[in-house]
């Protein structure tokens, strides 16, 4: 398994695309900056929305209106994150693909996307009906926050747990 991953990383690293990205000095910092700015949109949206859903913040907008305001931001930003992330991986495949922090980050990301989809598809109606006070909504919101927080922390740790 790890041998195959090594082979894949070596192949990816030597594709024309990866070589170009890796050879231009400013490319990686610029991509990382775009990646972090996109993370900023997701994190601020997630915190503003979920703190409200949990009931830790107050506002003039209903929790449901907050969800309609911030969930589209999260969904729209995810492709930017995946695209910049994928280009960064292709430039230095082993740095992330063989990295435990990266593996954890992807696992947490799957969870966060799953909970966001769950809220969007099933709980939004529940939230509308109860004014966002149902226990399920609060638990999902708190779990989402924990996952997004873990994603950012694990993301920074990639630099420190390199294979």
């Amino acid at each position, binding site marked *: 398994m790890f041998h195959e991953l090594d082979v894949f990383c070596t192949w990816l690293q030597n594709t024309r695309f990866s070589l170009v990205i890796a050879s231009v000095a400013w490319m*990686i*910092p*610029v991509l*990382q*900056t775009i990646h*972090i*700015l996109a*993370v*900023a*949109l*997701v*994190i*601020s*949206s997630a*915190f*503003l929305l979920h*703190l409200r859903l949990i009931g830790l*913040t107050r*506002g*003039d*907008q209903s929790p449901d209106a907050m969800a309609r*305001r911030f969930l589209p931001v999260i969904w729209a930003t995810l492709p930017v994150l995946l695209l910049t992330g994928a280009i960064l991986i292709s430039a230095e495949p082993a740095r992330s693909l063989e990295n435990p922090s990266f593996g954890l980050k992807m696992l947490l990301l799957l969870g966060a996307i799953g909970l966001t989809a769950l809220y969007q598809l099933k709980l939004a109606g529940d939230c509308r009906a109860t004014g966002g006070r149902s226990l399920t909504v609060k638990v999902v919101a708190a779990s989402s926050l924990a996952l997004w*927080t873990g994603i*950012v*922390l694990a*993301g*920074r*740790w990639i*630099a*420190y747990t*390199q294979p």
Partner: protein
Amino acid sequence: MDPTPFFIWLQNGAVPTAIREGETLFPWIESVHVLAITFVVGSIAAVDLRLLGLASRSRAVSRVAAEILPLTWIAFAAAAATGGLLFSSKAVQYAANLSFELKIGLLLLAGINMAVFQLVTFRSIGDWDGAATPPRAARLAGGLSLILWIAIVACGRTIGFTMVEIAD
């Protein structure tokens, strides 16, 4: 006056030394710093976009600001505290790093922009609070803020590539 002796004294303190020499302290503090910064930048962008007339157009500017900015200040305090700790661990190196110097300079400019907006433009908020598109001075403040914070993130990220001892 050369501040280097002060920076040397600072980074030889017990806490900075522990951060510099420990295995995990620096990455943990840096991770929290990134988390705090992303909230600061994203939440300020939400207010900036309202000032530019590009988001929350049907809500009063003062409401959007009152809803978001108190949380922004909490996150900013966390970013400043963690940033101070990171700086203290390698003060001499950071102080000599161009990206770091630029980042601090841009932070000051963002502060001045915010102060000017608060003290001058915001005084007439009663006239344009509900306006979908705020007046030129408010749009200018929002646009400047957006550009400055994007540049601050870029400089912050560049520090890791221009300081050899720090992981990129």
